[in-house]
């Protein structure tokens, strides 16, 4: 525990050299040429707590890859304050208890900031640990509203939160679809009910008639009776806020019943199983979601770099991690100091960081001030970008 930072034991040096070797190999792969040697033994450490084991391990690995890509890019341009950025990944296993240990390990390793997180249930205990240690935590993928409602000043996020999707969906229903009557169906889980409630509230405020607002029982097969009932109320659009498996059945059964209205889903319906279940019936379904990197014009360079470095697509969240690391480095440069308190203060002041996911700034709670959501549409069995809002709230078609 004592002075691990300056420990010059053989094992530690070997470990550090391995890390550096891995980093340089990565940077070379990415087509960049960083001069890592100068930063040896004197790096700025950014912690990345994500699940690296268990069922969410893939997502965690994508996120670490995104972080390393961001660090490699910054380091190749000379680093920050003349020092190199070092990414320190730690496995939180998407589990609250493991997460506490992972966070403590990162604190002990001497990280000055943390950028990461995947499962909200693990991010929450991590946040508490980092708050006690006074270290800023920039979340890249955890969307639970609670994280920024704890009253902590050291939390930020580069992704939207669950309760922002509802007003977004409502605006789309009113201003893009021009729907007068809407039906909202949820599956009674916390996430789904929350999204449905937020949407209904926003729809009512926007003057859209909510003709149906009720839950289904998940894990059934036949939702035709519910759809028959909803159809009799003649909505212009049905918005389902549950998960993709039921969404696939609902879409298929709605079209089987000959229903013609627009069908929409929340971001948990964003999964190819939807199309596999519903087949051609899924076509023209519209989904509200945080954008994949592929659908963001500013992120095209990132997608290419990622493909080059890792030989596969960047996954749904790694681009938000890329921005989380980038904005943390920007804060260190702005603060002209790599102490946690100075970085936190600088993060609060950033208002227009040009990231791969668009312009990023934080509101006083630490949430991204303009959250990015887009709509995507199913065309010929694939997801395609559909519409997004411009800065003034107008709906425009995406390329």
């Amino acid at each position: 525990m004592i002075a691990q930072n300056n420990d010059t034991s053989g094992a530690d040096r070997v470990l550090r050299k391995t890390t550096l070797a891995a980093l340089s190999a990565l940077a070379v792969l990415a087509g960049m040429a960083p001069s890592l040697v100068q930063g040896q033994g004197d790096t700025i450490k950014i912690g990345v707590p994500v699940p690296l084991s268990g069922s969410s391990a893939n997502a965690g690995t994508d996120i670490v890859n995104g972080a390393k890509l961001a660090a490699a890019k910054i380091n190749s341009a000379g680093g920050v304050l003349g020092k190199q950025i070092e990414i320190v990944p730690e496995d939180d296993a998407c589990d609250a208890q493991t997460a506490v240990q992972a966070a403590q390990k990162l604190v002990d390793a001497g990280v000055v900031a943390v950028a990461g997180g995947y499962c909200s249930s693990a991010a929450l205990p991590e946040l508490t640990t980092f708050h006690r240690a006074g270290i800023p935590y920039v979340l890249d993928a955890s969307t639970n509203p609670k994280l920024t409602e704890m009253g902590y000043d050291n939390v930020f996020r580069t992704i939207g939160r669950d309760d922002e999707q509802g007003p977004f969906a409502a605006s789309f229903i009113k201003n893009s679809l021009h729907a007068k009557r809407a039906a909202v169906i949820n599956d009674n889980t916390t996430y789904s009910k929350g999204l449905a409630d937020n949407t209904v509230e926003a729809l009512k405020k926007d003057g859209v008639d909510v003709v149906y607002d009720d839950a289904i029982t998940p894990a059934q097969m036949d939702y035709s009776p519910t759809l028959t009932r909803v159809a009799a109320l003649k909505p212009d659009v049905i918005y389902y806020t549950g998960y993709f498996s039921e969404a696939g059945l609902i879409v298929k059964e709605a079209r089987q019943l000959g229903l013609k209205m627009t069908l929409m889903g929340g971001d948990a319906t964003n999964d190819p199983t939807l199309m596999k279940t519903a087949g051609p019936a899924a076509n023209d379904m519209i989904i509200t979601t945080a954008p994949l990197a592929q659908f963001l014009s500013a992120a095209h360079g990132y997608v290419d770099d990622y493909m080059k470095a890792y030989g596969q697509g960047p996954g749904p969240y790694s681009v938000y991690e890329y921005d989380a690391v980038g904005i943390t480095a920007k804060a260190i440069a702005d603060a002209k100091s790599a102490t946690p308190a100075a970085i936190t203060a600088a993060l609060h002041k950033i208002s227009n960081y040009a990231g791969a996911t668009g312009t990023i700034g934080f509101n006083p709670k630490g949430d991204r001030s303009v959250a990015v959501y887009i709509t995507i549409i199913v065309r010929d069995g694939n997801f395609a970008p559909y519409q997004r809002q411009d800065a003034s709230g107008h709906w425009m078609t995406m390329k």
Partner: protein
Amino acid sequence: MSTFFQFVIEGLTIGSFYALVALGYTMVYGIIRLINFAHGDLFMVGAFIGWTGLTALAAAHVPLALALMITLVASMAVTGALGLAIERVAYQPLLRAPRLSILITALGVSLALENGVLLLYGAGFNTYPHVLSHAGFDVDGVQITFAQIGIIVASFALMIALYFFVYRTFVGTAMRALAIDQDAARLMGIDVERLIQLTFFLGSALAAVAGVMEGLYYTQINFFMGFVLGLRAFTAAVLGGIGNIPGAMAGGILIGLLEAFGAGYVSSRWTDVFVFGVLIAVLVIKPTGLFGERVVERM
């Protein structure tokens, strides 16, 4: 009025699946007084075997009608054999043990089947190829698809065939004799063990038909699907009078209609409350169910 008849069609479709699976519960209970909680999972296994067969045959470019026939027969045979094997391994040694031991074993078999499929096929959803057309017709505002008619007709045909087998054939008569008094049946020269095996085979094969039809109609299957459907089919069997074959058919259809009308006129979120409320009500008010008469005379 058209929505009323729409709910009837939907309820009949849903109920057909429950009825086919309820038959397996009721036959096994009639013969050895076992509530075979693994039966819902045999339905799931049938769906997975059907999926494996159909995707393999589709990849080999076998004509669709032929592929469907082979898949259905193969799924019935394999699931039936699995039901038989389960009876041999897990239930037969316990036939003379206290009733509770065999009930707990059935729960264990259920978990083993679910987790076995989970390991073999993964936790995600598998999807059947889209072979059933969505085509149908409109009768005064009521949408009926040919697929729905096919499911309802197929399950009624199977149920009637089973009814004739049990009530009009020599083997069926022996099965009913067995249900009334096992020792007396043995004294009459009936091969009790063989008949128990036949019962398990028939019940499992019917569950496999339901599984494959569910896969074809709803396209989405996963390792947990037998749990939800199994409990509802069990309720259907109790409603009809467990051990009674026409009772299981009627119970299945009634639970399907209850689900459709409940979701249609009240809310889908209350489905479980309605269905299991019926289970409790039947057990408290009329434990013999709608068709069950004297407790000794089952099937």
